[in-house]
């Protein structure tokens, strides 16, 4: 085993929750509002629930190949060559994802908080932190997350409840004004985000009780759906859909507009803390998945030696993949959902599962014994 630590299903669920949630409430409200208009707050739960499909696929695969990660069982299913290819493409997916997340992080901080600091400072420091976390292992990431989740959830709830006085619910209506098409278009973005839960396929073998993955994965999706919907309702009811869509980070301005008396103002620093902590966990998870994937595909005995070099790759990608925040937003809105859903959160897992089922049927009893051993 490359990873000796074990985490509980609850920890895994919390990890997945933060992994999805960290960036979703920052980017998705604007994009969904742009695509779905008034109905963004309907589109988001509709899309988010797609994550449940991914959880189910990953769970069935994980149960069929106990103790093995997606990098390993793709080889079991598709054979050596094709399997390694699929596994490597997943490694690429996690690397790409990590780089994109880091880039989102840097862009947010440079546009909203420290405009004069170069992007690379934020990217490199975050990757440095994540590298230390990955080197410390999955258990440590999960433990940190247990601390961070308290911070994130309690401050988000505090922000939403403090802002109720400035909500204008009329902004959410009319419902279904422009039919179902915009909702469907708007739903695909949160769907892509929640499809990131495919990382559960890497973590599942390291659960103390792998069968708990289904419940905790589903809980993670539902929890993050609830938070995203709350965020959308809050933001839209304050700004209205058009203004929301015109911003890159509506939640940031939203938090700025909360004033309690004359003392409790300027909550945006809270958003920054949540953001940094959450993105740190998110990056660490994908970074970890990529490192473990490389190690398993190439049969290394340790994943730690590849961590630093992968960090460099992520750092370079995070700077060179997108030229500016507009391009990043464009990519996230137009290209990313189709790409990630069709390939990684639905396409490949579905392919793996169906081939596995067909092969299981074909070989029948003859291979029944082998499977038990494997």
């Amino acid at each position: 085993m490359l990873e000796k630590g074990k985490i509980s299903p609850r920890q895994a669920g919390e990890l997945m929750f933060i992994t999805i949630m960290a960036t979703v409430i920052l980017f998705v409200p604007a994009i969904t509002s742009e695509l779905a208009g008034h109905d963004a707050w309907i589109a988001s739960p509709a899309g988010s629930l797609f994550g449940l499909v991914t959880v189910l696929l990953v769970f069935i695969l994980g149960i069929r190949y106990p103790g093995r990660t997606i990098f390993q069982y793709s080889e079991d299913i598709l054979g050596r060559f094709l399997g390694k290819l699929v596994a490597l493409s997943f490694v690429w997916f996690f690397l790409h994802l990590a780089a994109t997340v880091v880039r989102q992080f840097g862009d947010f901080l440079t546009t909203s908080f420290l405009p004069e600091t170069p992007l690379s400072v934020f990217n490199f420091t975050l990757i440095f932190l994540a590298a230390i976390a990955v080197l410390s292992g999955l258990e440590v990431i999960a433990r940190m997350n247990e601390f961070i989740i308290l911070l994130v959830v309690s401050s988000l709830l505090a922000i939403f409840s403090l802002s109720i006085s400035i909500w204008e619910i009329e902004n959410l209506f009319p419902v279904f004004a422009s039919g179902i098409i915009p909702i469907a278009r708007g739903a695909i973005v949160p769907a892509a985000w929640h499809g990131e839960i495919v990382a559960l396929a890497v973590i599942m073998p390291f659960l103390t009780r792998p069968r708990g993955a289904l419940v905790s994965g589903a809980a993670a999706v539902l929890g993050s759906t609830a938070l995203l919907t709350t965020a959308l309702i809050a933001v839209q009811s304050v700004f209205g859909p058009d203004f929301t869509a015109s911003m890159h980070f509506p939640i940031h301005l939203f938090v700025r507009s909360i004033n309690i008396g004359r003392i409790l103002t300027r909550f945006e620093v809270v958003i920054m803390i949540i953001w940094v902590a959450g993105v740190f966990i998110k990056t660490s998870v994908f970074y970890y998945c990529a490192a473990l994937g490389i190690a398993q595909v190439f049969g290394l005995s340790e994943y730690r030696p590849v961590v630093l070099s992968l960090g460099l790759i992520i750092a370079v990608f995070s700077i060179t993949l997108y030229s500016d925040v507009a391009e990043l937003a464009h990519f996230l809105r137009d290209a990313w959902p189709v790409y990630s859903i069709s390939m990684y959160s639905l396409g490949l897992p579905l392919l793996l599962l169906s081939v596995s089922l067909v092969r299981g049927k074909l070989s029948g009893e003859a291979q029944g014994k082998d499977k038990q051993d494997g």
Partner: protein
Amino acid sequence: MNNAFFALAKKIKKKIKRRTEESRPKKEKTKSELAVSDELKQRLQAVKDLLGESKDIVIREFKSGNDMVKLAILFIDGMSDKATISETIIRPIQSGNLSIKFNKDLSAGNALAAIEKHLSEFAETSTVPDLSQAVRQMLGGDSILLIDGEKEILVFGTRSWQSRAVEEPATESVVRGPREGFTETMRVNTSLLRRRIRHEGLRFESMKAGRRTWTEIVLVYIDDIVNRRVLEEVRRRIAAIDTDSILESGYIEEFIEDSPWSVFPQIEHTERVDKAAAAILEGRVLILTDNTPFTLIIPTSFFQFIQAAEDFYERPAIGATLLRLLRIAVLQIALMLPAIYVAVTTFHHEMLPTSLLLSIAAAREGIPFPAVAEALLMEATFEVLREAGIRLPRPVGQAISIVGGLVVGDAAIRAGLVSPAMVIVVATTAISSFAIPAFNASISLRLLRFPLLILAGVMGLYGLIFGLLLILIHLSSLQSFGIPYLAPLVHGTADDAIQTFARIPWWMSFKRPRMLNTRDRVRQKSSAGFRPAPPDERELFHEEVKKNAGKR
């Protein structure tokens, strides 16, 4: 440790051998009767050779009352009770007119058995087969009796030395609670614990460590509560200690903790007997070390450092729970306040309300340093002040704090070197760091304040968060004997977390912490130990109801 023991045994055997070889030619010349008495002399000489001419070793040779046996008693002056030795050991053997039976039994071949039999009612005795072991016990304060012609050696438990009385511990004083603290003497300490926990499950397990100091280390636990695997691990780690000296429990702490390079203390220590007893009852293992009042509590999680013994005696809701929340706030202030101040005044002016910003800006007008430098300077000054004051005699220490704190601080502000706001920040931080109950945890926070300050000065709040996340990674990777350091926030159940941050009333605390994985988790059965209510009133009410029902 064992090796040392064998080495000593070998040495003594060699010496005895050499003596006998040297004396052999003499032996041939003289009569066999003299050879017997030589045997005692040789052994005494061996002891003298081993211990050198140390003045504190007392060797008294004497004969039994009936002149039939030669004996020698050895003890260390100041560590054994001389009166007991002469009254209950030497006199009964020496005096000719003791019991007839004793006199009859006491003969050359039978002396050891006779003495053991007849003296057992006077003192605690035991026999030891070889000289090296006996000498070792003598060095611990026992007295040893060598009998001519007998290979085995009688050891009398005569340990008695000057020790400090049981006093109130200076480091952990309380307003309410017992005032007894541990002392430097092991027996006193074990009796203090035994007096509090009279359960038969209380175990004192003795181990020795230190090749030269032979320090006694005692593990204390309750047999049917403690987690066996933790206990096993403690034993293993202590047995693995191979050093020549252990003078304080701090030595042991360093030898057995999980991450010795960490800035955070992973083992809690206490001088308070009640706190130690509470830890044992919770299912933890206590390590007593001879010659120090500080005991170690294992395993330890970080949040133990925000608890004080007194919490458990005060009113639960208002007293203890709010105090704990206050301590958590204080912990954060002690760690971050200067960094936050620097970050906000340097990078994030927009976060402050305008009026506050204006007053801070006005105060900073004309200050020659950037806020980071100012903060570092003031923090460093404060640390120096504190270090200077801490070890001086009390009257001088006060002078230091007056000169350093009042005169220098005031002058610095008047001279325009530091801003008053910075002085307020530094002073608040200092007071906060004093409010943390555990001194060793507060040192770690003091240390971490400086890197955070520098990070905040370089990158603002982002730098501060960066630093905090680094600390969080570190804290998450720490463990104390298999239990995550951040437990119960990280590892335990919600129940544990509530018990840690709030003080649950005693009538409501049914279970021991889940994270410790103790064998017996039940403190009280939930049905039996429910909320105390005035019983007679309730019964009266029921009787009233019954009466009324009867009337109808």
